[in-house]
């Protein structure tokens, strides 16, 4: 637990919850990043691309303003990252949500479907890390 950062985690989490609340209040949309991304690729709605641009811009502003900046991981096998991306893209399209759509917004709406999805991807993620890190010994 040496890496535990409870304060920044809670503050950052609250900002994410605030963002989801404002999006729902102002536009009636769920702040689910995978849903917004799949929608942007499919139907090219302007608001979706603006949300995505904001996502990168907001993170970039903080990383730029608040050193120690996050140093991108290097040396992790890129083919594995590509495989990870394909699985995440495919899986979230099939399940209709990710950590934000099902995890944050769905649980906040007490959706049983989203709670089931969140438990499933959490357990699958933990199993996946166990296999990749501890059985195959892949680390960054």
């Amino acid at each position, binding site marked *: 637990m040496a890496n535990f950062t409870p304060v920044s985690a*809670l503050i950052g989490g609250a900002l994410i919850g605030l963002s989801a609340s404002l999006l729902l209040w102002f536009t009636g949309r769920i702040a689910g990043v995978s849903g917004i991304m799949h929608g942007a690729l499919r139907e090219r709605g302007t608001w979706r691309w603006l949300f995505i641009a904001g996502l990168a811009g907001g993170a970039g502003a903080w*990383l730029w303003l608040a050193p120690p900046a996050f140093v991108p991981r290097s040396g992790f096998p890129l083919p594995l990252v590509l495989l990870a991306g394909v699985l995440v893209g495919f899986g979230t399209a099939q399940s209709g949500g990710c950590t934000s759509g099902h995890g944050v917004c769905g649980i906040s709406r007490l959706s049983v479907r989203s709670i089931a999805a969140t438990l499933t991807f959490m357990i699958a993620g933990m199993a996946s890390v166990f296999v990749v890190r501890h059985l195959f010994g892949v680390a960054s």
Partner: protein
Amino acid sequence: MRHATARNASALAAGLLFGLGLAVSQMVNPEKVLGFLDVAGNWDPSLALVMGGAVGAAMLAFRFVLKRKQPLFDGEFHLPRLTKVDLRLLVGSAIFGVGWGIGGYCPGPGIAALSAGSVEALVFVAGMALGSFLYRRLGAPRS
């Protein structure tokens, strides 16, 4: 201001706030995420508090927002219509979870990490677009 413009401005503002939250909480760092998922290693519970903070804030605010007849800049709320827990949902979530555990990125942090000039975030986001395309070609229900 026309409603379409207001919606676009709202989406940009919400995106900025969301990205800020991901950076402040360090979720843009895949090692931080893997530290949470690695329950057999040096476990880092931070991600649970990010989720807790986000759900706490949203649960409180959604109660008031969803009592309104409509959002400020749109005629209706666009809420998910599906409520059923079925195999499609669980298998899709499991596929997502496996990918999440391999790379340490879910969609939001993957896109946000682009801003740090991360090469692997670029590869990850390209992979997500490919996965989205593959699902539409192979996995989507035939109508």
